[in-house]
Every structure is written in C-alpha cells, then in structure tokens.
C-alpha cells in the first residue's frame, strides 16, 4: 500500500533533518496490551524487565498471578530472570488454552529460543513474543544487549510472523492487529524514542509493505528504527538527482511479495537497510521475495556486519553506517558501481 510522505515535513531546504516528535514505541506496546487485556483472554510473562518493556501497566491493571489482591486471577506472571524457563512455561500455558505473551529484551529472548521452539513452535501454539531493545541502537549497554540476530532466528521458525514497526502509532496499531494472528508473532521494538512518521490517518495492515516515497530506478527497503534514517537518506539522494523509492516493511516476515514485485518492475537496484545482521533478516527476506519475480534485480544489503560497542545510538548509527549519511554513501557507491560496465568474462 501507499502512504506517501511529504519529505519537507522531515527535512529543511538544505536537506538537514528537522527536529522530530519522538515517542517510545515500548509505551505504545504497553498501552496496546492494556487495551487488549480488557477484551482478550491472555497472560503476560515477564522476566524482571517490566519497567523497560512497559508491561508494568498491564501488571498493575490485571494483577500479578498468585499475589494480593488478584491471586489466581492475576494475569501477569513473574518468571524472574529466567528467560529459558519463561519460554517453555509459555508452552505449558498455551497447551491448556491460555494464550501467552512473552516479554523481554530481544537479546535475552535468544537464550529462550530453543525452549520456545520446543514448547511453542513445534506443538504449533499461538504466542505473542515481544523482543524489546533490538539492534545496535540499544546503545550504551554495549554488544551484550544489542541483538542483531533475533529477526533471523524468528524468521526461521515455521508459522511465525515478524513485525518491526517504525514509530509509536504504528507500534500501537501493529500490536492490536497482529495479536490475533495464529502461530508465533514476534514483535521487535527499539529501546529509543522514535521519530513520529505516521499520522492519525495511517492504517497498519499486517503483512503489507508501505511505499512512503515514490521513485524509480532505485528502491530502498527498510524496517523499524532505520526507516526514519532511510527517509532522511532519500531526501539527500534526491539532492544528488536520484529518484529513489522508499518502502517500509513493518512485517519483515513473511515479506510483502506484491509490493516488492511491483517495485521490481522499474527498479534496477534494491538497497535494504536494517539494524540487524544483513544475513537472515530484512535483507534476506527481500532477496527471497525478489527471487520469486521474473527478472533478477541487484540487491545491496546494509546491516550490522559485526558486534558493535557502547555508545550513544546516534553515534553508533554514524559509525556503523546506519544513519542517513551512511545510507546515502552506500547507495551512491552502489549506483556508481552499477554504472561501471561489468568486466567481460572470458
């Protein structure tokens, strides 16, 4: 679908980013969970990170299991710092018809991956899984807290949907919309407040990619926190007389085959941008979708190639090439490469 943005809303005449309204996507998730709690039957499992994952409001409203005043009716379950246990216990709840919502940081979910696979994925249960603090944008906590493999891990689980929203409004809608999806829904969120991109007239549709900027020849595909950086990069590239299209894929997996196939018709170069390993994540999801089209297209994947370090999110994005300048440079280099005639193969 199309949701065309006015770039002037995000950059000034000289191409510099304007100050943006920023909100925590985790707050949007927490609010959506409270809304859902009023009408849907589910429990939330936490592993000592409820202040950070913003499930605290759900816990306050719907009570802690076994504790005064809700006791057996409490719908938030404390697991302590036991992510592996949490992921397996979720399967035991689901087996008895109680839908589990598993919440922790993306990195620590990775520790629960195998128990989750055994206890939820193999028996084919429904579960909503929140991985907060995804990517190097997690910042100063350093590489131990910066998950760059989580999307790849979840994408390989059969019957799993992976969602990575770009701002507050989208996160809230995506949580509400994806909640009923069968199988595992993995939602990856950022730690940082994200710049508002979508206004009140936006409607999130599960599985659909969104064309944010029309263009031709080059198509940028981004997800999550990098979509805002890609947006700024598009403005810079336009100043270089390029006309890139920007597609945001909030549903990373399964990728939107229709939108990507349509874009492929007038695209010579795809560039994917993600705060994640370029292997197994958004970039590979796009490659898989494009492999289903008739014409082969060139794809350049921008991602995090190595374990990063402590630092401010903006500094890390700059150093590791995920900010608007870094993306612009890589796109320009790729375009330059493309114009150079390929060496004849003997």
């Amino acid at each position, binding site marked *: 679908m199309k949701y065309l943005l006015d770039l002037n809303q995000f950059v000034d005449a000289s191409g510099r980013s304007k100050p943006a309204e920023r909100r925590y996507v985790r707050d949007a998730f927490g609010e959506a969970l409270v809304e859902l709690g009023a009408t849907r039957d589910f429990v939330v499992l936490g592993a000592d990170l409820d202040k950070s994952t913003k499930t605290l409001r759900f816990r306050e409203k719907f009570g802690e299991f076994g504790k005064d005043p809700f006791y057996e009716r409490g719908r938030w379950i404390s697991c302590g710092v036991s992510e592996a246990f949490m992921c397996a216990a979720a399967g*035991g709840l689901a087996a008895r018809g109680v839908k589990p919502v598993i919440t922790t940081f993306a990195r620590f979910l990775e520790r629960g991956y195998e128990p989750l696979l055994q206890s939820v994925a193999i028996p084919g249960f429904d579960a909503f899984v929140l991985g907060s603090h995804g990517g190097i944008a997690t910042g100063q906590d350093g590489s131990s807290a910066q998950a760059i493999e989580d999307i790849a891990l979840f994408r390989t689980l059969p019957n799993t949907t992976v969602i990575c929203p770009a701002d507050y409004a989208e996160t809230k809608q995506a949580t509400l919309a994806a909640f009923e999806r069968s199988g595992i829904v993995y939602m990856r969120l950022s730690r940082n407040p994200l710049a508002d991109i979508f206004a009140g007239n936006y409607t999130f549709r599960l599985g659909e990619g969104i064309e944010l900027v029309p263009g031709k020849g080059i198509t940028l595909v981004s997800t999550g926190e990098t979509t805002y950086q890609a947006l700024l990069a598009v403005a810079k590239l336009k100043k270089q007389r390029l006309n890139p299209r920007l597609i945001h894929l909030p549903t990373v997996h399964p990728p939107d085959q229709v939108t990507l196939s349509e874009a492929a018709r007038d695209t010579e170069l795809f560039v994917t941008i993600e705060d994640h390993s370029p292997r197994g994540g958004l970039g590979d999801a796009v490659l898989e979708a494009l492999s289903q089209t008739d014409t082969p297209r060139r794809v350049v994947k921008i991602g995090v190639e190595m374990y990063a370090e402590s630092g401010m999110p903006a500094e890390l994005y700059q150093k590791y090439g995920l900010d608007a300048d870094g993306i612009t440079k890589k796109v320009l280099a790729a375009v330059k490469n493309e114009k150079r005639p390929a060496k004849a193969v003997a």
Partner: protein
Amino acid sequence: MDIREKKRLANRLRQIALRLVYEAQSGHLGGSYSAAEILIELYFEQMRFNSKRPDSLDNDILVLDKGHATPGFYAAQYLADLLPEELLKTYRRIDQNTTTGGPLNTLQGHPKFWPQRGIWFSTGSLGVGISQAVGTAIAEKMAGRQTRVYVLVSDGGMQEGIMWEAARNAAYHKLDHLTVVLDLNWCQNDDFVFKTTELLPVADKWKSFGWEVIGSEIAYHERDGTSLNGHDFEWLSHAFQRAKAIQGKPAIIIGNTVKGRGIAEIENDPDWHAKPPTREQYEKWLAILQAEETALRASERS
C-alpha cells in the same frame, strides 16, 4: 489396586516397551525400565482421568520431562486405555497418511502435544518438560481446576540449568498440585551420572529451592536391594499420598531406581540408554519377561 496386579502391569509395560524398541529398532529402553513402577503407580493408582476422554481438561496430567522414555510412557498409556493398540505400531515411523505439515497420527520418538491422546506437552530436550508443567500448573490454578500435574524427570536432566529455573518458579508460585518424580538411576547417555558431572546432593538442592522432598538419594555405590524405593509400589503409594497432602509448595519424590531394571543383562549399564536389541536379545528378554509374567499371574491367583 493390589500390589501383585501392579507388578504384573509393570511387567507388561516392560514387554510392550521392549517390542516398541525392537520393532522400531530405535528408542530408549534403559530409562523406560527404571521408570516402569513409577509409571504404573501413576496411571493405575494416583492419577484421576477419564480414559474415554483423554483430552478432558479435568484429567490429571503426566508430563514426561525425560521425553526419551517414550517406550515406557506409551506402554503405560496403552495399558491405561489412553492409546489404542494399533497406534503402537506407528512408534518412530513416518506418517504416510498425512500431508506435509498436517496433523500427525503417529507416536513420535519423543512426545509431541496430542491432547486427543492425553499428551499435553512436547518434550525431548531435557528440562523443558518441567518448565512446561509449571506453566500448565499455573493455568490449572487460573482456571480453578482441581487437576494435579505430575512430572517425570531424570537425573541427567538435572544437569540442565532450565530445570532449576523451573524449580525456583514452582516454589515461588506455591504450586502444591505439582508433583515431580525423579527417576534416579544414575546412568545417562555417555556414562554414569557421577562420571559426567556430580549431581549430589539431590534432596538438599530441592529443599533449598523451597520444595517438599519425599525420599532421598542413595549414592550409586551405596545402594542395595532394599534401597530401591523407586521400584517399590508400597513406598511409591505412600510417597504420592504424602505429596498430595502437602500445601503451599510443590513436592518432589526421589525414586532410587536401576536403569534397565528387569533384564539383568542391561541393568546399570549406561550403554543401554538408547540402543535397540538384536533379534536374539529381543527373543531372550521377552522369554524372561514372559516367564516372570506367568509367575506373577500365579501369585495373583494364590
């Protein structure tokens, strides 16, 4: 139920388990035999369930954390009328009748969720079963059901960190309708448990995690014929009764057992963790078990 009848059922379980592993030429006999009496005691004395409705939420549940012990588990379920006989032929065999990805109608090598057959868990990776059981036990409390949740765990499984996460959580949530049974046979895949990494002390560990501990471990070299309470129906019955009476915390029953119990040739031999018998062995062992069954039947009549 009369103890003599339970003994005969345990013998039947061993015969069926032997057939399952022999016919599939794959499966775990040793750990099924060590748990035979525990399984019979559970299905024929302790657990309340409606065998006509294996998927009833009101049935008591057994979660097989030691998911490799399917020969014993399926045999017990068959004896308890939870599995039809024709299904036993499907053990560890490909399902030719369903499309790829469709629901399976075969008995998996390690149990897979199949409530219509009374299988409420998916295990095979040690420690996830007890964790699932804690989740299930919480679900039972939430729903206000009177269901009891039993878990059969192995000594090797206690080397998994997740088991202690589950132990801490079960005690914290005061899951007094959760009873774990340890099949302490001191053997695991590669070698004896104490030659792999030390497990002692066992009872003290669980006590310190806030559990009611029934029975205690007897070190491998200190065991004698009288200390093998995991094969003693009288002791097991008392232990389960005690566990049911405990309030405010979960209970663990420590059953001292012998791996491969019932066939002298494979007893206390870690090599018989996951090995199928040859035809010769199968016939010889079946004859031993059948002779024992005849003697047990005679004693039942006397």
